């Protein structure tokens, strides 16, 4: 078969129109385009958080700040971040007594006398895992990892199948009853991309929570990680968690 100039132009024209249509349609079909800020280049950052267990006093300010900042439903059982209290008897590290009344929102009532064992607080939030199981299982790609290492949910795309809630080993996700979509900590992505700190970090009175940029060579995180004992939650899950805990007790799960 020979191709005439006419055939060529028609085929070429079609190709052009179709490619242009694809180009125009692409941003609408691609899930998860995070908020774009002109002064911010995602590829220059790799966000993480450092939590110092020894500094946490269980005041719950972070839980409040998070709910206020992100409009999280102010009812029990919906938390982007929460604080747990562990009480471990010296001889029974395998059976810690744990509580988290209203996620620690109102702080913790006095419960344990001195000398009974050790008591400490563990703030928790999304671990923004490098190999996050929730991103892996999302059937439509509504959950995704940004170029700067933050795991986000595209609410306009999420179908509400709840597979991600099942897949998260840390219990960080819930279904927002208002939107019927998955919700979780965004590391205050709307703030950190503008050079601000996440709400929980901003309000922490003891500096127990610190935002860290692993791609920034001047970030004090590097020195801290080099010189202190560090642990992540459930390391056996191999999720590449980026929430680093200093002085985390082995009884914490």
């Amino acid at each position, binding site marked *: 078969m020979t191709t005439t100039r006419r055939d060529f132009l028609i085929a070429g024209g079609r190709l052009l129109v179709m490619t242009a249509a694809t180009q125009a349609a692409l941003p609408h079909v691609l899930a998860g385009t995070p908020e774009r800020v002109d002064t911010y280049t995602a590829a220059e950052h790799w966000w993480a958080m450092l939590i110092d267990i020894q500094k946490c006093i269980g005041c719950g300010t972070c839980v409040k700040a998070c709910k206020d900042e992100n409009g999280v439903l102010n009812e029990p059982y919906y938390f982007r971040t929460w604080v747990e209290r562990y009480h471990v008897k010296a001889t029974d590290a395998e059976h810690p007594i744990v509580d988290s009344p209203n996620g620690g929102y109102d702080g913790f009532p006095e419960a344990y006398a001195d000398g009974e064992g050790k008591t400490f607080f563990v703030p928790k939030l999304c671990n923004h895992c490098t190999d996050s199981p929730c991103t892996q299982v999302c059937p439509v790609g509504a959950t995704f990892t940004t170029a700067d290492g933050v795991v986000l949910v595209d609410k306009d795309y999420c179908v509400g199948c709840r597979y991600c809630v099942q*897949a998260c080993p840390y219990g960080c996700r*819930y279904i927002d009853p208002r939107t019927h979509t998955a919700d979780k900590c965004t590391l205050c992505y709307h703030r950190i991309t503008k050079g601000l700190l996440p709400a929980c970090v901003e309000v922490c009175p003891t500096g127990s929570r610190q935002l860290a940029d692993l791609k920034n060579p001047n970030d004090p995180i590097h020195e801290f990680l080099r010189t202190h004992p560090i642990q992540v939650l459930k390391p056996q899950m191999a999720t590449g968690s980026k929430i680093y805990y200093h002085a985390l007790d082995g009884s914490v799960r």
Partner: protein
Amino acid sequence: MPGVDGFMYPNEMELQWSVLIVLYPFITGLVAGAFILASLERVFNVEAVKPTYRLALLTALAFMLVAPLPLQLHLGHPLRSYEMLLTPSPTSAMAMFGYVYLWYLMVVLVVEIWLDYRKDLVLARRQATGLTRAMYGVLTLGSDNISPASLRIDDRVGRIVTIIGIPSAFLLHGYVGFIFGSVKANPWWSTPLMPIVFLFSAIVSGIAMVMLLYIVLTKLRRAPLDMRCVDTMARYLFYAFLVDFSLEMLDLVHRIYEADESFRTLDFMLKTRLFMPHVVIQIILGTLVPLTALALTQVVRLSAKVRTSLYVGAGLLTLVGIFAMRWNVVIGGQLFSKSFLGYTTYKLEFVHHEGLLPAILVMLLPFAILGVLIKVLPPWPTETRQVEQERAPAAHV
């Protein structure tokens, strides 16, 4: 919070997957099982089960048509579900569902049924008038050549489709098992045995369902039961059930012997909250009792009537047991905290979009569809034709 013992992560209080998600593996299991039973006759030439060949295919189709419904009802945004087909995430097991489903429904089940029924459809069209004729006309897709050569082609293609169908049926249900088995965060689910256990329990439930339907429908039609057929199905049910039960016990024994970090939690759960549904209903009532009944029919010489009663009883209990198995996997896997420090309770509501009422309706729907299918595509044409043939000479006399 009432219903919660010990410590749960705050976001864990609400159960994510309800009774509708229990129905999903139960229904797809019936599809896969019924199809595999049908394949026995087609591919492995088991003559004895031939009377149930078409019934098994129609049962598979009826349940297949309903399979996505509980999933759809469960979604937070049902209208967005098409996104799973348009922009599937390649790493997600769940994203595959639409493709596996469509492949199985459109490429295997519908094609096989159409090929098998084509001759009947053409004949039915010739005899019918008016709307019925038009309907059969549409169903034949305009192909009305029923010459022996053409039917031979149908048969050959049908056989190839069935051969493709067997791994597809395995894929369909093995895949459903994978959805649960691949969740590493949940030790109750996370085991490579899950797809295999799901598969064998699917075969068990499918055979039991078709066997029951065959017995009940034959009684309703006041036709004689083909005991060779029922005996053969019961024998296959017995063997499949033995494999299924061995696999489940292997899983249980393995967990008990390994006793890893989740063991105490799961063990406690099995002895308390899951004792009734797991130990009593699934293992004792839904497995050991029907297995014993089936074993009895294999060992002791019993009358046809007694055998039939035992088969019906065993079949019903088997279905209860397999449903309980799905329940214990789906609901049981959500009753404990991933911190292994506490337990919650599943509250099943009645009138709620994920409650008992929609679950019952979803479960009844396949039977209604099967009723229509049997009306349009009678699964026992040979028998009616035999009757007609018997009547014909009498008329001449």
